[in-house]
């Protein structure tokens, strides 16, 4: 509040005068701030959507895990790594070993299966991942929430929470049929806010037989030391036998969110900017009317000795306050969206991904700045008109 007191101290026109002017025309204030609130709401929600998607995919990967896929393939589903290549990768140095002395490597087949959604019955593509015993060790963020994990060598599968809730046949105790076999869901796993929540896991060898695959999709392993990634990468790239791309797991998943997140934030920002024109015009109309109806008052203030800049600041302050009220209202409405789960197909992987709207401090600041900017643009011309009024003319207007 100090800066406000300082500002009003400079202008001489008290803040309460500005606030009371808004209160005097309640309907107009509510309508104008309401328009701005809606724009801020759209702006914030879209940014929250993109942030939620990014957060989910960035959180999926572990920084000390490395993923290897076929050269040129952009996703695990497109990739194919032969058993021969896999064993060369497995024999590389710098791979961490587990407590039992074996290397922490998981060779995983990843495919998509078409499943109907629980509510609408419309089909979508779900990632089904074959994991080995180290698959769970490599992903400490995954815990079994319900039931138990699958037994290796059987037709048992476990489903991520979003899939169990969102797709038919994927809840615990239900069965899914694919590849001429029935698969029983024996457990539901909680992977926090990560992409794994939108996957189904089963035994790698069983799934490869079912889908008649000879090749894995990706090889995931843990580094001895997260800082040695560049050494590992150089080693793999100089090995003529390996035609593979190697990435940190965290980077790999972050890349997969890029296109969709960019699409959402570009589209959303463009829409918000266009919408804001409407809200700015609303503020302008309100502020012009406010100036017009108070011409005599402005004259009086000037006659009392308040300077032109004091008048300018007072009216700009009124417009900024209007924007601020709209911004706060819009943000409050948008923050409720955090309770809404959302699920859509990621263009890049062609697979379903569930995420939530995420409100970050950056979004709060950006939304408020956007609201204040709308108020400023809408209020500037009317405030300038008020400041330019001649005392005599203004007083005569009454």
């Amino acid at each position, binding site marked *: 509040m100090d800066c406000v007191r300082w500002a009003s101290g400079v202008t001489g026109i008290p803040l309460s005068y500005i606030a009371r002017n808004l209160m005097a025309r309640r*309907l*107009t204030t509510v*309508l*104008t701030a*309401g*328009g701005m609130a*809606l*724009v801020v*709401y*759209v702006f914030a929600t879209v940014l929250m*959507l993109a942030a939620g998607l990014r957060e989910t995919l960035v959180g999926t990967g572990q920084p000390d895990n490395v993923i290897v896929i*076929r*050269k*040129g*393939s*952009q996703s695990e*589903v*497109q990739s194919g790594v032969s058993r021969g290549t896999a064993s060369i990768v497995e024999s590389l140095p710098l791979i961490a070993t587990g407590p039992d002395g074996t290397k922490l490597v998981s060779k995983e087949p990843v*495919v*998509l*299966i*078409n499943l109907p959604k629980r509510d*609408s019955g*419309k*089909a*979508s*593509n779900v990632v089904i991942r074959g994991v080995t015993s180290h698959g769970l060790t490599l992903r400490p963020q995954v815990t079994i929430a319900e039931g138990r994990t699958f037994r290796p060598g059987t037709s048992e599968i476990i489903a991520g929470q979003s899939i169990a809730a969102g797709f038919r046949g994927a809840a615990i105790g239900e069965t899914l049929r*694919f*590849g*001429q076999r029935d698969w029983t869901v024996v457990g539901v796993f909680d992977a926090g806010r990560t992409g794994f929540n939108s996957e189904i896991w089963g035994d790698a060898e069983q799934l490869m037989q079912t*889908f*008649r695959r*000879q090749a894995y999709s990706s090889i995931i392993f843990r580094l001895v030391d997260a800082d040695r990634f560049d050494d590992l990468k150089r080693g793999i790239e100089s090995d003529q036998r390996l*035609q593979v791309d190697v990435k940190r797991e965290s980077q790999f998943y972050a890349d997969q969110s890029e296109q969709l997140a960019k699409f*959402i934030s570009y*589209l959303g920002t463009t*829409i918000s900017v*266009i*919408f804001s*024109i*409407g*809200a700015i*015009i*609303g503020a*302008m*109309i*309100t502020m*012009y*009317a406010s100036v017009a*109806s108070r011409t005599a008052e402005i004259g009086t203030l000037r006659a009392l000795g308040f300077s032109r800049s004091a008048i300018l600041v007072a009216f700009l302050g009124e417009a900024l306050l209007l924007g601020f009220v709209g911004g706060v209202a819009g943000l409050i409405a948008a923050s409720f969206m955090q309770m809404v789960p*959302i*699920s*859509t*197909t990621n*263009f890049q992987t*062609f697979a*379903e991904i569930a995420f939530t709207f995420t409100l970050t401090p950056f979004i709060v600041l950006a939304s408020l700045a956007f609201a204040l900017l709308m108020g400023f643009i809408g209020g500037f011309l009317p405030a300038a008109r008020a400041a330019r009024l001649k005392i005599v003319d203004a007083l005569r207007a009454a």
Partner: protein
Amino acid sequence: MFVPLFVLRNAFRHKLRTTLTMVGIIVAIVAFGLLRTIVDAWYAGAEATSSARLITRNAISLVFALPMNYAQKIRQVEGVSRVSWANWFGGVYITESNFFPQFAVDAATYLELYPEYVFKPEEKKAFQVDRQGVVVGRKLADLYRWKIGDQVPLRGTIYPGTWTFTLRGIYDGADAKVDESQFLFHWSYLNETVKARFPRRGDLAGVYVLEIRDPGQAAEISARVDATFKNSLAETLTETEKAFQLGFVAMTEAILVAIQAVSFVVIVIIMAVMANTMAMTARERYSEYATMKALGFGGGFVAMLIIAESLSIALGGGLIAVALTIPVADIFGNAMGTLFPVFFVSHETMLMQIGAALVVGLVASAVPAWRAGRIRIVDGLRSVG
């Protein structure tokens, strides 16, 4: 003659305010139209389908292909007249951002099933005889300034390596709904190269396209095709081309619903702005309305004046907006490149725009008109605006 003129004069008494309101309405209605057009573009793939075509794919998901010998079996299914097939190639042209759909198609049959791709006969022939040839839609050729005879390299993501094609033909759509951003090349070229390098990945079709004799029998024929491959290693799922395309739309439904919701939000925003304008206008004129009432005009007449004024501003803005939407959509569609291959403002969208303008005008004037209609003469005359 007097009343319309009176309304119009009133509307432009505050020139600045009316102009600003109209600009707001124009922006909002254009944005509304553009968003509806984006939603339409999403459905364009489904709109352009033919009811005489069915798509057969692997029942597990599109990631899994179907064996080549299915073509012969499908052809024998009762009701199927012709069969072709296509594979999604998923290559990258220079950088990932240059996205357009690429299909390896059976050149001899595929183009026959899609008569809406209109070719010059000599170009079609040139494509048929060149196994490294490719045909593309007009929009795609214009975007990358490709000319007949150009070499186009693609980096494979599903099929490794760099693949080079020679542009042999450019097709135009038979109507505006046809996707002119496709890249179609010889399946046999893909198949032979793949077979030489990865024998297990050869002789596979991503999807089969079936032409049926009687569209009314689509459901029965689909069931017959799927029954043929029941309990085989690759079970199939056959559906109409429209259902197949709508399947893709359904996957991104959440985004679509959001865009639709947002298109109504802009109408609500402008409703608030317009309602504010009308409330201020009416408040300033209470004494005039009281005078008119004192002269003998009824409350209904006064209310009608406000409604008519609001409607004429909204509708004026709405009409300008509809006229502006077409060029704006053109610019937007071109800027988006191949993301929205089919992008044009439909008649329904235009009607919805006019409808939205009318609703904005009516809703905005409702409260002020009701208040002005009921105002007591004494209070009105006393009012200072």
